[in-house]
């Protein structure tokens, strides 16, 4: 088994987050990864209001469920304020990888542009070298250690570490920090501030394709 780590193909332990900075109506669809190219349908809606100046960012979660040939959000339409973030996750067991794709260029998990994020919980130990599958220079390394659980106490200690996430800030040129050391089960959140469009992709997936 392989712990697939690719923002273009979201899986069960992945989340995609997108901030909406300007008021308006944003339509989107959720497709099996790469399926967005086959469909122009964007049936779900995010209505963004002005909000109040200086207002703190709020988070809105959308849970997805798999349907035949696609995915369905638990709320087909939500209303948020400008500056808020929407986070998508699909908790289902048997599901194909998916992408959340909107009708604006900045809004797609398959190509991370502005004010968005991708999180992945790492389930297997190893060294994960990630790159931008769209050819940009950005990249980094996530080293995932086995916690070496031998006793009940080790297990409890390891469980406590699971609540600690790691943040990696990413733009077109660099990732900060570039190298991260975590333990199995921990989550890394990649926050993309501004970019022309990139992915966070395990380079082994690209080698496989070559």
């Amino acid at each position: 088994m392989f712990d697939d780590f690719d923002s273009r193909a979201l899986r069960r332990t992945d989340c995609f987050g997108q901030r909406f900075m300007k008021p308006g109506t944003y339509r989107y669809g959720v497709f099996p990864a790469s399926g967005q190219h086959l469909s122009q349908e964007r049936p779900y809606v995010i209505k963004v209001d002005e909000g109040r100046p200086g207002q703190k960012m709020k988070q809105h979660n959308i849970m997805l469920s798999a349907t035949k040939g696609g995915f369905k959000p638990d709320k087909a339409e939500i209303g948020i304020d400008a500056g808020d973030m929407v986070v998508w996750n699909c908790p289902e067991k048997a599901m194909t990888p998916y992408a959340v794709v909107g009708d604006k260029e900045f809004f797609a998990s398959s190509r991370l542009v502005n004010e968005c994020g991708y999180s992945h919980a790492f389930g297997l130990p190893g060294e994960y070298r990630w790159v931008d599958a769209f050819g940009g220079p950005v990249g980094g390394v996530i080293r995932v250690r086995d916690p070496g659980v031998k006793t009940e106490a080790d297990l409890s200690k390891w469980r406590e570490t699971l609540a600690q996430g790691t943040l990696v800030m990413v733009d077109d040129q660099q990732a900060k920090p570039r190298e991260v050391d975590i333990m199995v089960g921990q989550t890394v959140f990649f926050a993309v501030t501004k970019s022309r469009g990139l992915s966070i992709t395990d380079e082994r997936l690209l080698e496989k394709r070559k």
Partner: protein
Amino acid sequence: MAEITAALDEQGANKLLDGAIAAIGTQVKSGSGSLGPFVASYTVSGTLTNGDVDLIPPSTIRIVDLRLDWHLDFSFGIDLSDILPDFCLPQICIDIPCVGEVCTPKICIDWPTISVPISFGDFVKTTADFQIVVNLVGADWVVSIKVLGVPNLQFGATTAALLAAIGLAVTPILLAIPFLGPFLAIAVNAILLAIGVAGVTGFLGPIITPFVSGLTFEIYKQPKKFPVLPAAGAFDPAVDITIDAIAAVVANSGEDELVLTADVSP
């Protein structure tokens, strides 16, 4: 009164059975069986080797230390969610500078179904009593011996060894499942406890025992009609005799012997 009598002492019977048992060769069977709560599909091969023959009047041939070498290839599926509780990653909150706090939801993982292939071999020795069976099969008299009852095969240390083999086989499979690594020892224990010694014995017994129970093998075959003198010319044809009946017993005439008697007619 019988016209032909042949007798074999225990040493001779040992030689006879060495050949007869070797001639059975390796037998192969496939099927499925219960391995504790799991269902395993298997292919098993078994080869018998003669032990020490003890002739017991009036009609028993006992083979002490009859050895069965067996090799078992099997695989079974485990839905890990049946034996391990679901595991949940807690909600994780991260403070993004100039943005604010972002939290992932609690994400629960239910475990997959795995398939475990195992290759394992051992031998078992048993003592079995056989009875002599004489039949006219077509144009031949066939003397066979047939096992009496169902020998009780003792797997003993094999059970523990097979459980250990299951533990070894399952470990790399579990290690490849995301998030399971830290629970490896718990998962292996859960699987081995679910199977248990009873599960292994209950699996091996019905698979291995049929190699011995119901075991019948031929020790002598003779055409009912056969020439005792070949033709010696146009006016001197072959002389045939017919075996009308064959009887086989274990008799004691100073020592135990396997005795075959035949009634013949021209």
